[in-house]
């Protein structure tokens, strides 16, 4: 299905034999975008779904190496699955608790092995439980070695001193457990750092936030600000708008897909336009997993990811950037835990406790 969608692009997908040796001498950087709330093929890569992802179809896939069968064999909850993506191990922590991953994260490997400062690894995430995603409780790594985590919704709430009347659209909740926002803790971004690190006044932040339409737009805004001011070498953004699907409203799910498609393209443009990133940055885009099939009577179609059926476990990944072949599609199955070892090979660190394998097609 995804192969067909990609191949339908025709001559634009003729493989570009870019040599790996062509990577510039600037320090390599990686940006990872994950979706907390996968989108199914029906709404994306099949012909009638492609209208929802025009940017992925026309702009990004032709420039990418695209993997059509990324299987997640772990727990299909967004926090625990994102933690699994970030550790390269299928984590088993409680999806709804504010807990750190049990295995070292990619950020810890990166910073410890390469002796990078805290400012070089960042996570921009929804403000529900993800505040602990930056570092594990592993004894050999853990506190002080992880990524700094920004929770833009939390930041906005703080900036508003709790008066969020005009910003409700940016503070939408965790749809998987829509009624709760856990107590925040861990290495979260402090409001006073807004001005110091992002060079953004509270007033400017508030006024710009008014121009945005969703939490993911807020996340991308913050991510771009981070890129401009701190230029971290490892930046991880977790988007969440699509997961409104849990509320069962199909139109809102589709809106989420279209917005995410647009935001991915914006991030790629930002990478190409920021001097610190242009020409030396690899972008990975992948949903954390899929959603239930219409054919499984145990589920309710797009609404959830509870059946554990093949569609809910299988998703895709694209990689773009220097040294990555363009317009190439791979159908071989791979696992979502393969991401961290691949990042290790690209950036030069050793994720010794990760279970996955480096993706040979990207190295």
């Amino acid at each position, binding site marked *: 299905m995804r192969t067909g969608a990609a191949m339908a692009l025709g001559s634009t997908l003729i493989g570009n034999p870019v040599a790996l040796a062509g990577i510039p001498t600037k320090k390599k950087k990686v940006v990872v975008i994950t979706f907390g709330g996968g989108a199914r093929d029906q709404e994306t890569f099949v012909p009638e779904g492609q209208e929802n992802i025009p940017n992925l179809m026309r702009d990004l896939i032709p420039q990418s190496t695209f993997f059509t069968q990324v299987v997640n064999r772990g727990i299909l909850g967004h926090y625990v699955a994102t933690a699994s993506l970030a550790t390269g191990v299928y984590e088993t922590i409680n999806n709804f608790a504010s807990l750190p991953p049990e295995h070292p994260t990619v950020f810890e490997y990166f910073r410890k092995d390469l002796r990078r400062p805290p400012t070089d690894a960042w996570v921009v995430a929804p403000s529900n439980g993800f505040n602990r995603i930056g570092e594990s409780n592993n004894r050999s790594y853990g506190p002080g070695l992880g990524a700094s985590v920004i929770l833009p919704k939390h930041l906005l709430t703080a900036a508003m001193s709790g008066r969020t009347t005009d910003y409700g659209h940016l503070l939408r909740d965790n749809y998987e457990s829509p009624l*709760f926002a856990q107590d925040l803790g861990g290495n979260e971004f402090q409001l006073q750092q807004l001005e110091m690190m992002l060079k953004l006044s509270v007033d400017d932040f508030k006024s710009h936030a008014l121009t945005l339409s969703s939490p993911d737009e807020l996340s991308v805004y913050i991510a771009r600000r981070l890129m401009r001011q701190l230029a971290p070498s490892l930046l991880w953004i977790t988007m969440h708008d699509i997961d409104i699907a849990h509320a069962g409203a199909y139109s809102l799910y589709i809106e989420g897909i279209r917005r995410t498609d647009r935001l991915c393209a914006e991030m790629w443009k930002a990478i190409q336009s920021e001097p610190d990133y242009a020409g030396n940055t690899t972008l990975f885009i992948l949903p954390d997993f899929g959603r239930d099939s219409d054919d499984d009577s145990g589920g*309710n179609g797009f609404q959830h990811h509870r059946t554990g059926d093949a569609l809910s476990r299988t998703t895709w990944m694209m990689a773009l950037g220097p040294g990555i072949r363009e317009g190439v599609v791979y159908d071989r199955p791979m696992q979502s835990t393969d991401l961290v070892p691949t990042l290790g090979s690209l950036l030069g660190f050793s994720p010794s406790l990760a279970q996955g394998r480096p993706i040979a097609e990207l190295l």
Partner: protein
Amino acid sequence: MLPRDLKPEQFRGYPPEARKLVTNYIAALQRLPLSFLPSVLREAIEFDYKFPAERRALERELANLSSLSAEQLQDWLQGFAQIHLSAALENFDWINAPAQFVEQLSSHLWTTHQLDAFRTAAVAYADRLRAAVPPEPPAMPRLGIAVVGQGVASYDEPLFRKLRPHGAYYSRVNPENGLRVLLDAVAARAKAHPAPYAHWYIDGGQPAEHDVTLTSVSYAALEPARAALLGKMRADIDRPGMGPEALRTHLAQLRPADLGLDKGGDEVLDRFRIKMLTEGSGTQVFSTTFAQWTAREALRRAQPLTLLVRFAPRQRQRPMNELLAATAESAELDPVGSLVDADMGAYYNWLNQQRLPGADQASFLAWFEGHSQALTIGPATPRGTTSTSAVDLIQILASLA
């Protein structure tokens, strides 16, 4: 506590009909693996409040399990027997709280990477059961009707795209008096083939006047219960130590009387209604989700002969805390978004209808309320066709008869 140690007196907390059922089959229950038995008890404990179709299905399943020899049973359930359970699960009060056990089991299966094995075992069991105890055919060919788009003045995007390949699309339907025609047709079917919970009318908004013989559920009629539920949810959320899983468990334990839903004189339907609000996801805040989920559950559980679902505009998306606090009067509506929701909902209604016995004889009609677009699917309907002839809903219904 293991299944082999089961004794009839341990079920004294069950409602009377349920107690009688499990006592009758206690010998069969004692032979089941613990990874499987609580799923059966979860259904059995609700026996007094189940629809007739569900009751018959459960009785037939238990009779079948009872009839199997030890070797056969081992063969049927070997996949379940291989599931490793924790001591905590074995010590859980799965007799009196089977639903909570199943929730815990689900979490255990995910965490221990046994979900796929359990899923394989469950599918194999269901296939064997269906073969050994074929589902009862319906008393008459089923008819499903979805009415979408209430409140939408115009809509230029194509409708019923997922349904069109399966049936005939009509572009010149006379919409006059359309809802009345459809409700009258449903009432006529109810009169022709009367049976409890066999003919349903679900409305995502204010229900239209309808025949009293129809089993009716509507979002508007449940407004007081919904407001009471949202109030309880807000109070629960503010309680120290409450998390999403605890809230879900608490909601599942609510009874009709807790939400003022015990005055209808129909305990089975009252229970069904409350489950739509307490067990659904999004049903508490979006009427389109409520209508789709209620239709799904009505089809799955009651297996109606006739089901008319009318979708109504839902409120616009807002942060969940605002949605929970909203009153019906204060909610701003999203008619076009609701039409898109309902279009998909109609597709799901058809899919769920086709999962029931007699699918090859079943018919389905979707209509854009107040407008000229409709779609039909039936055994005699040509697939993937379009009709541009002027037609009314009476004629369309006749084509499905």
